[in-house]
């Protein structure tokens, strides 16, 4: 069964902390994506990657960075967490231009 695994289901961090959200997929997919889900706003694309060491900004990249050192792993980094980054973060992967497989999400609360 194909899988996208996000390392944490729930996280609570303090304002100003550096936060790492990890995502691993076991499907050898070349494409990986980070979205955040907020009520009334749906899923908004933060960053995506089509290949190792490659990254592209999505619609809301401010305050975030990403790292993809290996094909199976795509990390989202909050350089200095702020309360407006409290959200549900969803990682997804896909092969070529097919649909996504999503992880279970990480509910991040910044206090």
């Amino acid at each position, binding site marked *: 069964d194909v899988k*996208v695994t996000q390392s944490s*289901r729930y996280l609570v961090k303090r304002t100003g902390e550096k936060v790492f959200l990890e995502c691993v997929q076991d499907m050898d997919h070349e*494409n990986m*994506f980070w*979205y955040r889900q907020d009520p*009334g*706003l*749906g*899923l*908004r*694309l933060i960053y*995506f990657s*089509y290949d190792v060491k490659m990254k592209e900004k*999505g619609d809301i990249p401010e305050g975030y960075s990403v790292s993809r050192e290996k094909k199976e792993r795509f990390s989202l980094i909050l350089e200095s967490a702020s309360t407006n980054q409290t959200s549900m973060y*969803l990682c*997804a992967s*896909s092969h*070529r*231009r097919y*649909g*996504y*497989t*999503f*992880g*279970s*999400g990480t*509910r991040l609360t910044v206090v």
Partner: protein
Amino acid sequence: DQQVKQNSPSLSVQEGRISILNCDYTNSMFDYFLWYKKYPAEGPTFLISISSIKDKNEDGRFTVFLNKSAKHLSLHIVPSQPGDSAVYFCAARPDRGSARQLTFGSGTQLTVLP
């Protein structure tokens, strides 16, 4: 500017009846459309898709209709079941070109009442 819009944040339907979820888009480059279903504390899962060369795609109880001239698509669930209660997201992308990322709508919370 939202390129994919789901104007109904919520919908309640009686079990056994039809659920109709609607989605509008503004980007005329979008050619491929998908619906995802999301339960609380889980990631979205793929439900059904349609390419712009079709106007209908059916999979069991789920049918998606596409009206390209109106830039509108809808998801029909017949008959609705309590297990269908979830948030439904519409998504789209161009079928031509290199773009692989999906643009999502804001979601519709469907509640199927027993």
